[in-house]
């Protein structure tokens, strides 16, 4: 993709679904379910975002950052050896793992941080699960000289020590959250509490396409650069679009970023992969789209993991970044309309895929991403070699060394 046509692409909406509506609804999902104190700040954010989107200077600054700081565009890599070994469709990888900070998360944080700066906010807060979004937030805060506090569940602090240390090196304060299940959802609760208390000077950078309007739409727009680039690159490389898009889904930001620019391409099959943990039938998983039901949490209506009384239940996944009981409302809408399919992959399948990609291609993927790879490994043999599966390689696996070693009984 040439840099010249980027601005034009940026200013066009990702795909013409016309959603969300004015109040943030994707069909019956999304919306703004928060306490009254946050309603006016969310209105203010919505206005500031709309003004930024309409301002070419905002996109020019964003484009400079994407190119010079993040290292975009990220390449698409043909995983030839893996494709031959599995047989069937060609496997292509959109290399978001090559971004600065090692994952797609930075696409969003540079956008929100630029917005924070425009709004005159001096303090950034963020929630994090695997630590990737926390690192990406601490990174942009360091660069813009903003104070940064990252909320992270105690369980995740323990299993992602390296990222905790990275955030501290970057000057962020990491607050370990000891309430509830001590994972991502509790970190999000705590970040919301901070925001409601410090709303005057604080910008809350939500890391995924969930939360109250305008977050799901705004984060999607910032992540849609993945799909826009992919579309151009696939056309340039192969002369056609991929047959299948594949991405892991926790909150769903890397997935929506890849999927959205292809929503109008009816021939492209879209598959999101959730975490089946120990198996959907064990109840120990993090797959609300596959095995949950609609409810309201964290500011939006979406599919949730909940018990029959409407209490949110604890989730399980080997990957901290997928260990979340909800999912972005646009995914809930895509599921109901049938435009996207959602499946789930177990911990052990994801770990096997992690090792397989590492050994065949010399690319160590994040455990989150490994779920998408596992599903592609299942699907490719049912397709022909002329067909292709484009996987969003959303992050690299360096952060997961301890977890993977522990699975093998090793301690690093």
């Amino acid at each position, binding site marked *: 993709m040439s840099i010249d046509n980027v601005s034009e692409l940026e200013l066009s909406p990702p795909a013409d679904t016309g959603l969300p509506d004015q109040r943030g609804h994707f069909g019956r999902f999304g919306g703004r379910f*928060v306490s*009254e*104190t946050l309603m006016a700040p969310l209105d203010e954010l919505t206005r500031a975002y709309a003004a930024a989107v309409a301002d070419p200077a905002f996109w020019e600054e964003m484009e400079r950052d994407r190119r010079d700081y993040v290292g975009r565009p990220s390449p698409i890599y043909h995983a030839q050896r893996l494709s031959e070994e599995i047989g069937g469709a060609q496997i292509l990888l959109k290399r978001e793992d090559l971004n600065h900070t090692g994952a797609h998360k930075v696409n969003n944080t540079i956008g929100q941080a630029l917005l924070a700066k425009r709004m005159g906010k001096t303090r950034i807060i963020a929630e994090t699960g695997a630590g990737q979004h926390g690192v990406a937030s601490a990174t942009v805060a360091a660069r813009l000289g903003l104070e940064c506090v990252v909320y992270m569940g105690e369980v995740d602090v323990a299993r992602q020590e390296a990222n905790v240390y990275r955030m501290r090196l970057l000057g962020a304060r990491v607050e370990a959250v000891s309430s*509830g299940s001590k994972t991502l959802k509790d970190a999000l609760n705590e970040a919301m509490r901070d925001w409601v208390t410090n709303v005057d000077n604080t910008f809350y950078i939500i890391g995924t396409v969930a939360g109250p309007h305008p977050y799901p739409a705004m984060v999607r727009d910032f992540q849609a650069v993945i799909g826009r680039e992919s579309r151009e690159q696939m056309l340039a490389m192969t002369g056609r679009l991929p047959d299948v898009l594949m991405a892991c889904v926790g909150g769903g930001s890397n997935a929506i970023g890849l999927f959205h620019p292809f929503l109008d391409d009816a021939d492209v099959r879209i598959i999101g992969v959730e975490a089946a943990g120990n198996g959907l039938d064990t109840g120990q998983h993090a797959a609300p789209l596959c095995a949950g039901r609609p409810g*309201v949490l*964290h500011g939006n209506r979406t599919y949730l993991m909940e018990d029959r009384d*409407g*209490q*949110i239940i604890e989730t399980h996944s080997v990957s901290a970044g997928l260990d979340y009981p909800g999912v972005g409302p646009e995914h809930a809408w895509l599921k109901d309309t049938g435009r996207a399919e959602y499946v789930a992959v177990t911990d052990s399948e994801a770990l096997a895929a992690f090792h397989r990609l590492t050994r065949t291609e010399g690319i160590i993927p994040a455990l989150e991403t490994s779920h998408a790879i596992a599903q592609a490994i299942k699907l490719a043999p049912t397709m022909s070699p002329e067909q292709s599966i484009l996987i969003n390689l959303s992050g690299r696996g360096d952060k997961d060394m301890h977890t993977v070693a522990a699975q093998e009984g090793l301690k690093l």
Partner: protein
Amino acid sequence: MSRIGGVFAALREQGRKALVPFVTAGDPHPDVTLPLMHAMVEAGADLIELGVPFSDPMADGPVIQRASERALAHHVSLHDVIDLVRRFRETDSTTPVVLMGYLNPIEAMGYEAFADAASAAGVDGVLTVDIPPEEGGDFVPAMKRHGIDPIFLLAPTSHRARIERITATASGFVYYVSLKGVTGAANLSLDSVRDKLAEIRACTDLPVGVGFGIKDAETAGAMARIADAVVVGSALVSRIEANAAQPDVAINEIRELLGTMRRAMDAA
């Protein structure tokens, strides 16, 4: 007139203000809640806010969050809370009860089924923290059809247009959140509350309750001078937490604290 409207009308006539304690149903144990509710009425409570435990109480501080966790350890569900109100009504037909909590347990039950059961049990109002009027298109009419007052929050960040919209939707009373923050916070400013209450009263004749940050007789008395109702939550719940193994002690301490608040408010 609804039970809530009746209580506020009577208090207005007497020149008194409503004392509104909040406790979480089922904290520290489901058996404690009913005697606690009666004890609070004896100590001078005019209306009871009964918290419905929720796994993710985003707008609450640590004290009330832990109360939810204690109640959920006993699997206290929305059905159980409604049943508690039904049993409360067997011996108290006058004190209004408002359920306060989050939307998802009500979603799980279904708006209509909830409103039907709650109304039959004698619930008078429902305050759902995470449903602003904008999202209340189905919810508010379902409550009103069953004679349940939908009570809404107003905040320091609510500007005039929002106050007008919310007070037009609400019934029973409105609840002004006295500060930017979560329940149990400590940085209450009486002057800013006074200014905001004047703005709210310019938009509505509904009684205005104030909560968040009221922790003793002094703050309750000061608030009673400017508000129609004084809501106290974390200060009570922390008595329960401190005496979780001795509920009788917790009930006595709460009775005592509410008594001092009552006297301070009536003297104000």
